[in-house]
């Protein structure tokens, strides 16, 4: 049993407010990802949970115990750093046992713990080596071993994969996920990579400018982003934003857009709107919800709206092809199956899945 609760947490560095009232909680065994662009305060938040940074105001509770002024070593946490922070003069074994030695764990118990963790992470052959003799992936494993060996209440990861090359990063991501499944410890994971957050976390906190923009399950974050920042940050290529106006189409609410031919196209809205919905809106459509229109599709999927657009650029990636389309004076990106790729310069009729579209208020930037 271990939980983490954070209530209206604030942090100032001099006059600069880095965290502006953070509320978060992690249930037992949960995997929480803190994601956001650099400078959003996510690493500071993690350092505060670890006890490496002082708390300006607010509360941090681990397992219901207020730990605001508890030293890092007494919080029963383990942390994996971006730089791994392996002690360079010690062997892998010494690195792993350093924490136990500091806590005066008896020697036989230490040996047993090292054996268990080394077998678990398959690093037995490395135990006698120094960190300088290890590859990036091996260092990463050792860093995790050092965290695992303690059997802590809370695991903290500070961008642990950013120093690895692309392929290894994907492998290690899978490893971390497996590891969490097997160990089942409450984990807080800081990353700037939204894919890592989506794949690993049971809940994601998207942070921006010292505030949590949205704290929810990955699917909700992706499908119903709370505001335009979250919508734009999560997902790659990013969600398309189109300025639109509220209108009516056959007695049902719709949004009016400028199509390629200069005419105004009306896209019917599937969701029910509140009466105080502003006239001017921002329509958010993810690239994968833009299709080449065909009647079959429209029959299968309700809420497909039709609109013409000019194809400006085509970018094949192999598995799928991105197309940059001009619509309503703005460029949008669509994600197409390589077989049905539109051609450059062509005017295509798009089918836009309005059931998956998001509407935002342009003044508050919030989801409607």
């Amino acid at each position, binding site marked *: 049993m271990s939980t983490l609760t954070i209530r209206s947490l604030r942090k100032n560095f001099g006059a600069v407010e880095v965290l502006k009232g953070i509320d978060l909680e992690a249930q037992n065994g949960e995997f929480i990802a803190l994601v956001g662009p650099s400078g959003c305060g996510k690493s500071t938040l993690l*350092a505060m949970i*670890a*006890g*490496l940074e002082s708390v300006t105001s607010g509360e941090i509770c681990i397992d219901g115990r207020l730990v605001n002024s508890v*030293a*890092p*070593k007494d919080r029963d*946490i*383990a*942390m994996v*750093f*971006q*730089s791994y*922070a392996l*002690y*360079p*003069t*010690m062997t892998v074994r010494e690195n792993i046992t*350093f*924490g136990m030695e*500091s*806590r005066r764990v008896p020697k036989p118990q230490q040996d047993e713990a090292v054996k268990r963790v080394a077998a678990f992470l398959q690093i037995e052959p490395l135990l006698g080596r120094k960190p300088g003799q290890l590859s990036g992936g091996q260092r990463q494993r050792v860093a995790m071993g*050092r965290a695992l060996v303690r059997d802590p209440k809370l695991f903290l990861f500070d961008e642990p994969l950013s120093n690895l090359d692309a392929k290894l990063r994907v492998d290690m991501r899978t490893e971390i996920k497996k590891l969490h499944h097997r160990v089942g410890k409450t984990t807080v994971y800081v990353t700037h990579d939204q894919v890592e957050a989506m794949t690993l976390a049971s809940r994601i906190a998207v942070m921006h400018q010292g505030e949590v923009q949205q704290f929810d399950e990955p699917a909700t974050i992706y499908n119903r982003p709370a505001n335009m920042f979250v919508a734009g940050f999560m997902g790659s290529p990013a969600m398309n934003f189109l300025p639109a106006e509220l209108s009516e189409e056959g007695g049902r609410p719709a949004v009016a857009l400028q199509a390629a031919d200069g005419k105004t196209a009306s896209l019917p809205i599937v969701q029910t709107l509140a009466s105080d919905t502003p006239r001017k809106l921002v329509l958010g459509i993810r690239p994968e919800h833009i299709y080449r229109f065909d009647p079959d599709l429209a029959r299968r999927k309700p809420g497909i709206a039709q609109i013409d657009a000019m194809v400006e650029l085509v970018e094949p990636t192999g598995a799928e092809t991105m197309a940059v389309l001009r619509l309503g004076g703005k460029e949008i990106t669509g994600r197409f199956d390589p077989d049905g790729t539109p051609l450059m310069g062509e005017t295509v009729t798009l089918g836009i899945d309005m059931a998956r579209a998001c509407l935002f208020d342009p003044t508050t930037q919030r989801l409607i």
Partner: protein
Amino acid sequence: MADAALDQSLDHRAATVAARRHFLTRFVIYGLLVIFAAIYLIPLLVVVLNSFRDQQEIARNGLISLPRSFRLDAWGQAWSTYCIGGTCEGMQRNFYNSLKMTIPATFISTLVGAMNGYILSKWRFRGSEALFTCMLLGVFIPGQISLMPWAFILGNLGLSNSVYGLVLIHVIQGISFTTLFCRNYYVSIPDDLIKAARIDGAGFWRIFRKIILPLSSPILIVTVIWQFTGIWNEYLFGVVFTSGQQQPITAALVALTASGTNVRAYDVMSAAVLIGALPPLLIYLFGGKYFVRGLTQGAIK
């Protein structure tokens, strides 16, 4: 075909010219280096040769000339029997004084510098940068300025005319340098190591002992060499605050040159100077490569 052959021979000729030019530049460079090295070494050579010459021979042929005799007497005299200011014990007592002063002063100032550097780089606090700047002032203040204050302090502590007084002076005077060296070196050690160790349950001292010190050998070697040679060669404090049997070797050497009754014993003086110069020389010979390596470390990157 003919063109190709011509080209080839041209290429060959160009290569020979280039090789010759390369050889010439090398020759000039090494020649100059040898000349400069000789200029630096000649005084030392004169002293070394004179220490083995007979005093009468020096008087006859002049200070700078090739030796016609070879004797080791001067070394023995300089070490144990030559009379300086009435006591006829040679330099040995002063040599030991210098050791008794230099070794503890080097050790303590290096250790304090390492501690200071560790705190100023890894446990920063409000005002630590200002404190560091103040400590750095010591690097720029010449020793002469602190003569009066030290006289006052040593007098009050009852440490005047004692080797321990000199140890105190050299420890304090050296802290600016040792702190500067160590602090700048420790800044390059990643802070994440300290954070990881704190989470691992290590405290201030354990982190210093287990993580910082094992990483410090390059900078500690530099600091020790710097301090050892500096303190051993220091003359001003030694001559001002000690006299007679308490003097370090640098001060005693001057007393020796001044104490000649009628004949100047150049052979003994030369041997004495060499005895006085030997320890720093040995330190440099053994640690020199670490010294250069340590000084440049961190400069690149």
